[in-house]
């Protein structure tokens, strides 16, 4: 009755008139949880910048919720997998499980890994300006010179600071012997201000924090009691070639120069559909190409290096495997109290 041309014309007409597949996020309200309660740390700052650009490119109304690691992990386990709730967080997402602070139920395999949105190379150790060593390498020599010397490093359990401690310990053990490595003492830190007070109270000798948080204390003119110096930074900070970077000082991880940046990824609840992740990938690709995004991240000393979800997943799994290997050679940090 109808010839083929007629049917084909009808089909073309229907396809042309059909509305384009609706965007998942457009006009929606989105909750972005982060694994920190502080609004002054890098987790909030990165999430805040990313949030503004996601609003622009996803055309959604989103909000950053700084609820802390416990709540954020619990939220990603229980939230509906519709993409309307997701987490932006750094390496602590898997480090907490590797260090045993969180159970296997919080493993990466129980989440959907979205794109990487940026990096922070500035994780570092700082000491008082008048400390008798200028960096972690000299600190090793200082410890080696007198076996009665100890150094107290303030870090948090199950976090990037714990990793910074462990990488240094393993390198110290391999290079200077176990006795020197065991002259390191672990002191439990907290937020940056808690660690600063530990240093000023003389309850710690070296504290872990973020490059930008310590920056003002390292400037000239700061009162002697408050003044700090960087003794070990885990990756290269653009424009600061003078800093003692782990890898540049010869500190290694798994036999290679140790460089570690915090990678901020989007994590979604298990079962989140592919089209949701695809839309996030597209938005993040637009962010990567947006010079203003790169400028905003650089202003805070972060890098706007993004990765699409597939590559981000491969990357973070590989990073986790490498760190797992290092941890297998390290003692339990609490035994070094």
């Amino acid at each position, binding site marked *: 009755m109808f010839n083929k041309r007629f049917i084909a014309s009808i089909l073309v007409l229907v396809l042309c008139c059909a509305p384009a597949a609706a965007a998942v996020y457009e006009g929606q309200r989105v909750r972005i949880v982060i694994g920190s309660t502080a609004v002054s740390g890098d987790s909030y700052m990165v999430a*805040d910048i990313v949030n503004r650009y996601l609003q622009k490119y996803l055309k959604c109304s989103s909000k950053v919720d700084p609820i802390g690691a416990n709540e954020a992990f619990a939220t990603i386990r229980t939230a509906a997998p519709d993409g309307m709730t997701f987490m932006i967080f750094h390496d602590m997402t898997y480090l907490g499980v590797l260090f045993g602070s969180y159970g296997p139920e919080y493993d990466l395999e129980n989440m959907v890994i979205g794109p990487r949105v940026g990096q922070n190379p500035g994780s570092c150790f700082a000491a008082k300006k008048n400390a008798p060593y200028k960096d972690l390498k000299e600190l090793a020599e200082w410890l080696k010179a007198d076996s009665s010397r100890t150094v107290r490093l303030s870090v948090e359990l199950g976090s990037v600071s714990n990793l910074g401690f462990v990488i240094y310990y393993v390198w110290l053990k391999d290079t200077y012997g176990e006795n020197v490595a065991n002259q390191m003492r672990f002191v439990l830190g907290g937020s940056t201000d808690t660690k600063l007070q530990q240093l000023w109270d003389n309850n710690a000798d070296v504290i872990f924090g973020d490059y930008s948080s310590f920056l003002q204390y390292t400037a000239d003119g700061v009162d002697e009691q408050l003044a700090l110096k960087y003794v070990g930074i885990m990756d290269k900070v653009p424009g600061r070639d003078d800093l003692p970077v782990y890898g540049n000082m010869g500190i290694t991880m798994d036999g290679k120069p140790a460089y570690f940046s915090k990678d901020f990824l989007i994590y979604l609840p298990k079962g989140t559909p592919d089209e949701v992740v695809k839309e996030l990938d597209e938005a993040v690709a637009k962010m990567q190409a947006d010079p203003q995004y790169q400028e905003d991240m650089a202003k805070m000393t972060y890098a706007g290096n993004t990765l699409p979800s597939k590559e981000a997943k491969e990357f973070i799994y590989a990073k986790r495997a490498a760190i797992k290997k290092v941890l297998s050679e390290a003692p339990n940090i609490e035994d070094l109290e």
Partner: protein
Amino acid sequence: MLLNIGLALLGTAVGIIFGAIPGMTATMAVAVFLPMTYAFSLVPALYLLLGLYVGGISGGLIPAILINVPGTPSSVCTGFDGYPMARRGESERALKIGITASFFGGMISLIVLAFLTPPLAKMAIKFSAIEKFLIILFAMTVIAALSKGSMTKGVFAGFLGVLLSLVGELSMNNKMRMVPDFLKTELRSGFQLLPLLIGLFAIAQMFQEAEKGMQSNNLEEGVTVEGAKKFSFSDFKGQWVNVIRSSLLGTFMGILPGVGGSAASLIAYSQTKSFSKHPELMGKGAPEGLIASESSNNGLTGGALVPLLSLGIPGDATTAVLIGAFLLQGIQVGPLFIDQHPEIWNQILLALVTCNILMFIVMFFPIKLISQVVKVRSARMYPVILLMCIVGAYATRSGVMFDVWCLLLFGIVGFVMNKIGLPTAPFLIGFILGGDLEKYFIEAVKGNNYDLAVFFQRPIALVIWALIAIFLGYSIWDNMKGGTLEKMGVKD
């Protein structure tokens, strides 16, 4: 300038609303508005955020006085005398005394901030974990002051509160304490303060009312608002020493990072009781108790900015959020901030003056209307309060239903405690201070090779020990004297 004043007004008004809703705090208000400040430059953003801070701290006095539920943890002591005044029909007077005391507290702390920031910051660094532990211990002595006539029960309730504050994960080793397996996720960070606080006070009171048969309103029998004593500035006659002492104590507590507003008002309250000519009237509707609590918690606002702007470390939870505002604008706060940004420093002082004045205007003049709440029929009032409490509890951790169950649980706990004669205020104080007490104790002994003698070696520590001993001795003597008088048939 007009924009700045407009934003300060908005911030103050919204802050007051946040403070007045049980479960909502100044910290929450500042955190909610923080992302919006990105649209402004730093100075207007600071006017808005400081307005929220001052308003949020001040607004807590409204529910504390009118319904005996502290709107914020730092107004715990406000209800001790404010609520009995409201029950006597003096709600308007109590609110106006509280607002005026808040204003004076804010302004005195501002003067300290403006003129003494650098030397005070240097002094704050000298207060190590040892001194902070002792200050928290000192704040706990208020339990003795509140337990006159039943000290054993009061102290027991206080220790019970401390015990409860230790539930959850110990950050020293990430191990759980006193947490059943099935609540590992919900109780990882322990019981939350706000659901516990409003449960103990608001929900327990509702259960009690329900048991007795609901009263028509919150006024004492036979009392009318119309016949009650009115506010006059002469209420502050003889109270200036109290205002200045409490404001300075609040400011000082703010300067010490990690010692919160609750400790500030508790210490100010107990000191006022020690120096009072009529300590027996405190807790029964004495304006001096109300003045002490409110001037100290607003005194905290200026104090908490001292370490923030001169050391880069926040004095309390709200100023910790304020750091975010500076960072979002790319400005570091730290030891060089005042030298490098004198114009912002001056604007901060100006913003604080503006916000304190606006807080006074916004609260003082319409308070007549707000104070009429005591006349509202309880049957209409309680559902509204219950709803606000549930919303507040649910918002504590951005939407955790477990906190709503805790609210109801602690309502029952409070009801049972009242039934068996265990006072709830010491229990709450123990809970508020317990976590910090343990934290600073561990930090102090760990930093000194686990030697307990460190608590007796430093001069500041010895001074605080002396204060603790004098205050405890006085409380015990006062308690015994009260007991003897009671036996003799003499009432307060």
